[in-house]
């Protein structure tokens, strides 16, 4: 059907020409992209947070990293400590951004934006995935800051194309896992104050119960078990496999790259499903 000229009258109401409903998966993907795009418009207009977020990784690499590599207390299996630390700090800074992603829907609930989205024919999974995807892109910007810093500090990294692409996927996956987890928390606690409290409580345990700053082989058994149900461990393990130069006899990854991808993908699917289920709670 052709529409001659601009449609200035809004008549013909009853004759709705909405697109016939697409399959669920296409609707989720398309609308998630639309939401992520809007989020990125906002980020582009106010990128200050990207700079303030860069402070912490600088401290970890320049202060903690430099001191620990001089102390030589942590056995990293032949990898220089600073190089070992880079993927850990990268993942940590991604985690710290993503875990607070959920607060945005508490704001939007107070503003009524979420109400409109929920009353529209948008699958809840698309609302979650869109937010998570925007969190993922934020994380990529953050990751590039950390990697630049590593180069400035003279850390020897591997710059294979395949490795970089894999690292991008891992950063996206990791950030989306913690973003969607964060949205689930927001839907349960429902207020800014409680959300900030829970977020603060979670970040440090997630960080320390992972292989970010020491290998799991140094951990007591109970902590090692905990670290293996922590998605952060898989993200960091994969990043080490992809970003650290492989010397003979040195294995950067302890778990295995494909397991890392797999665990993160499954965890992401689970948290998106859980958050989608919880999402309507935010307006009740």
């Amino acid at each position, binding site marked *: 059907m052709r529409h001659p000229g601009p449609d200035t009258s809004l008549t013909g*109401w009853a004759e*709705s020409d*909405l697109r016939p409903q697409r399959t669920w998966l296409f609707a989720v993907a398309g609308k998630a992209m*639309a939401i992520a795009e809007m989020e990125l418009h*906002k980020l582009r207009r106010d990128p200050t947070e990207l700079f303030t977020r860069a402070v912490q990784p600088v401290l970890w690499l320049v202060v903690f990293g430099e001191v620990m590599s001089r102390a030589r207390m942590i056995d990293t299996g032949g990898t220089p400590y600073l190089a070992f630390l880079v993927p850990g700090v990268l993942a940590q800074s991604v985690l710290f951004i993503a875990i607070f992603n959920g607060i945005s829907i508490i704001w939007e609930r107070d503003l009524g934006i979420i109400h*409109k989205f929920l009353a529209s024919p948008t699958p809840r999974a698309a609302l979650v995935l869109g937010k998570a995807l925007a969190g993922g892109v934020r994380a990529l910007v953050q990751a590039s800051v950390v990697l630049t810093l590593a180069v400035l500090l003279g850390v020897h990294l591997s710059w294979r194309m395949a490795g970089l692409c894999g690292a991008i996927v891992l950063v996206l996956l990791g950030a989306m896992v913690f973003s969607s987890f964060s949205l689930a928390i927001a839907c349960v606690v429902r207020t800014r104050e409680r959300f900030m409290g829970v977020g603060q409580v979670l970040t440090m345990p997630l960080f320390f119960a992972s292989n970010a700053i020491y290998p799991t082989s140094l951990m007591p058994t109970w902590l090692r078990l905990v670290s293996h149900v922590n998605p952060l461990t898989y993200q960091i393990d994969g990043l080490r496999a992809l970003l650290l130069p492989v010397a003979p006899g040195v294995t950067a990854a302890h778990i295995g790259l494909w397991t890392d991808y797999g665990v993160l993908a499954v965890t992401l699917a689970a948290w998106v499903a859980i958050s989608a289920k919880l999402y309507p709670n935010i307006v009740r």
Partner: protein
Amino acid sequence: MKDPIIVVEHLVRRFATLTAVDHLTFGVSRGAVCGLLGRNGAGKTTVIKILTTLLPPTSGSARVGGHDVLQDATAVRRMIGYVPQALSADAELTGYENLLIMAKLYDLPRRVREQRITAALSLMGLEEAAHRLVHTYSGGMIRSLEIAQSTLHRPTVLFLDEPTVGLDPLARRTVWEHIKRLKERQECTILITTHYMDEADQLCDEVAILHHGRLAASGTPDALKRALGPHASLDDVFARFTGADAEVLGAYDETSRTRHVADRLG
């Protein structure tokens, strides 16, 4: 009621100990502008949330355009538009972007998106502000934008939750004009909640007055006024059905008399 587009039957919604909606039964005719009136906490917003599928009912049923809000939520969502109480356009986006995201979420095909958005912007008088961030808009402009957002997909039923609350008189009038235009063109059925009785009297074909989550009265504004007395206003009707009944009944005659005196004195 002929050809009801919204049918609510024995609707109940409880929150912990509070019963916000208590065995409510009412309907809205197709093409009508229906005013949902009631004091704060009477259950108006809860009813709107249930009808827009945001909140599941505790018991009873609600159907919009023949679709059950619980069983067939997606079908309901596709045929409704919703303007929540808070000024809910995204302040960090431009007016155009706010419309675009809604066009996408409502599956408007790419070929009609731009012309619908352009038409909506010109209808609302927002062409010049289209590419400015919404936080530079006035309250009336934001409401106009929101009405545009909620009608972009040409809904069968439009829900407006206190659309004029907090607006200055001029902005209120702008919003009225928008609603009247929608009404004149009989483009959709409108369910509106409001605290302003003059507004309800002017705009609404039907009103339903809620009190403590129950239907206290319903009908056309004229019929309700006539039933109360020859000079009764919708304010009087409202007070009669939602006040601490006996006292207000007494007070009605008095205020009514005072007002007529005032009218005569000019």
